[in-house]
């Protein structure tokens, strides 16, 4: 059974808002669940692709974009449960080393959409360790507000792939009405990011 640890102090909506305030022309791909609402709450943008399905697929969708758009930063904002469902992607991306891809895991150690059951990160699985062992040279965990600025700098600067885990509270916050029509989202993203 999981041991109850101290609840992390960082709040996910605020963390993501702070990250995206510096986005510039970056493209953002979200994982399913609360990450959508984090990114939407920070401000809707044509360069946001909200994935309301395909659990486990966010990192590879972003990788495909990163290869196609080598001069643009591509940021994944996803949850720990979503990342775990496609954990092999870290090995694939670690091998390929896309310079312009940053993966940010908002880790609340729970499946927030289904009732806050523990994920494996609540029981000791170390995502940063997995990323490092998969070939990510830059990977770190952040749990304090004072560490955010350094992480945000790393997301947007230097050669990727970069991987960050932000330990956050299970408290999420109000949610807006993020668009979920996939055909619309895909086409507005492509027009904004690829000019097609």
């Amino acid at each position: 059974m999981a041991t109850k640890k101290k609840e992390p102090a960082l709040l996910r909506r605020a963390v993501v808002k702070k990250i995206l305030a510096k986005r510039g022309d970056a493209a953002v791909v979200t994982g399913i669940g609360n990450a959508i609402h984090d990114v939407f709450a920070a401000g809707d943008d044509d360069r946001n692709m909200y994935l309301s399905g395909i659990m486990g697929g966010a990192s590879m969708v972003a990788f495909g974009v990163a290869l196609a758009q080598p001069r643009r930063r591509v940021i994944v904002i996803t949850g720990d449960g979503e990342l775990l469902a496609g954990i092999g992607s870290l090995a694939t991306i670690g091998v390929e080393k896309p310079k312009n891809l940053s993966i940010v895991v908002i880790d609340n150690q729970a499946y927030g959409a289904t009732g806050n059951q523990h994920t494996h990160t609540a029981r000791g699985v170390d995502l940063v360790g997995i990323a490092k062992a998969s070939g990510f040279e830059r990977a770190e965990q952040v749990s304090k507000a004072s560490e955010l600025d350094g992480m945000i700098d790393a997301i947007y600067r230097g050669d990727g792939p970069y991987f960050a885990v932000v330990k956050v509270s299970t408290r999420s916050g109000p949610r807006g009405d993020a668009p979920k029509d996939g055909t619309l989202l895909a086409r507005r993203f492509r027009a904004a990011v690829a000019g097609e």
Partner: protein
Amino acid sequence: MARKPASWHWSQDVHKIFRDIGIRQVAYVPDGGLARLIELCDRDRTMRSVVLTTEEEGVAQVAGAWLGGQRAAFLTQSGGVGNCINMLSMMEECRIPMFSMVSMRGEWGETYPWQIPMGQATVGALQTAGVIVHHVDEAERVPETVAAAAKLAFDGMRAVAVIVGQRISQSGGRG
């Protein structure tokens, strides 16, 4: 159909089609039936080939490639189709084109019984997931099938799979 020289392999023509239509990303799980095509793509500097740990990564990558403005091809063995079904829902939900080639196991002359359940379910699973299937089991017809399927995918905006029959690869004897 004009007779092909003995050294001819369908992979050469398919690779040329990939170049002609501007395939820039090739995502694959290594496979015997598609080995020669994979080799040609690996060596081609105009294409970025990516080895996957599991096939569902390929579906996601191909979706991302299109979102980013590039054409991609996804190559897999029929066994891998069973790993992609949920991921394929993105193609239907977002109407994203997908061009894929599936090398069949578990059909023509298969001698490895564990391949048969997934091989027999491959076409049904793809169709249920909304993928248009072109089955080809003559080597000479692979290139034209690929060309047609790629048009259907990229111009017709559909998810399409070219099923390369086991009769072509004759790989039934290997585990």
